């Protein structure tokens, strides 16, 4: 039987600014496929990843309407990862840093995202097999 590990990720980059976030989300995807318990502490710009008011848009440069463009929205990715985690017997606990949310007016997150603090990050890390920090560079 596969061991169900618990992993914590600290993310810091805002969406649409860096490839590091895509890589982090891919790592989380693998962990959820394995049924791991995954925690995410979203810090600074990363609290915008599950922001619920993200909207898809058409792209005239690509010559595609909004449906055809099917623009990647990170809130949809986070939701898909939460669903996949649950389906595979794990969980994705996404904690947005509350003060980071406040300074950005990013309170409208998708369902399942909770507000927390660095103390939550510490608790999540303590209870994990390992923690991966992906900071802003």
């Amino acid at each position, binding site marked *: 039987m596969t061991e169900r590990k618990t992993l914590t990720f600290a993310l810091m980059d805002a*969406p*649409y*600014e*860096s*490839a590091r*976030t*895509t890589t982090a*989300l*891919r790592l989380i*995807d693998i962990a*959820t496929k394995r049924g791991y318990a995954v925690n995410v502490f979203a810090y600074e710009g990363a609290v915008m990843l599950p922001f619920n008011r993200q909207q898809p848009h058409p*792209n*005239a*440069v*690509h010559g*595609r309407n909004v449906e*055809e*463009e*099917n*623009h*990647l929205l*990170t809130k*949809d*990715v986070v939701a*898909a*990862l939460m*669903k*996949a*985690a649950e*389906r595979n017997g794990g969980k994705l606990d996404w904690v947005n840093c509350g003060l980071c949310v406040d300074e950005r007016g990013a309170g409208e997150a998708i369902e399942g995202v909770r507000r927390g603090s660095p103390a939550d990050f510490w608790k999540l890390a303590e209870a994990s097999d390992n923690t991966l920090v992906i900071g802003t560079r």
Partner: protein
Amino acid sequence: MKALNIIECAYRATIEEQDDTIVWLTHAMKAAGADLGLVLRGDAVNYAVRAQNAAGLAFGDWRQTQPPRLADDIALLVTKGVAVYVLAEDLVLRGLDAADLVPGLERVTRESLPGIFAAHDQIWHW
């Protein structure tokens, strides 16, 4: 006015954006009548490599259907009349030659850059 975009910071969120933001900006401004050139230098010379393929990204049930197609976007700029320059030295450093790249690019040396800059009114180094 003639402006020159220089892209050096490559693959910055191109998966999420489904394109490169400065290549996109160049397309959009060209469509609005701007007279633009584009320099690819550093890691950005790889944008012109035909064989790259970013397809297949998936998260849970979510599938990306429109991955970035950077080489196509560069080739399209050329067809729209944008002069696209690639730094020869940066290609050599990465083991790339003309056969690897989309057609229509102008391969230039570092030495020739001041002359290219002088032919533009503004230089925008992103």
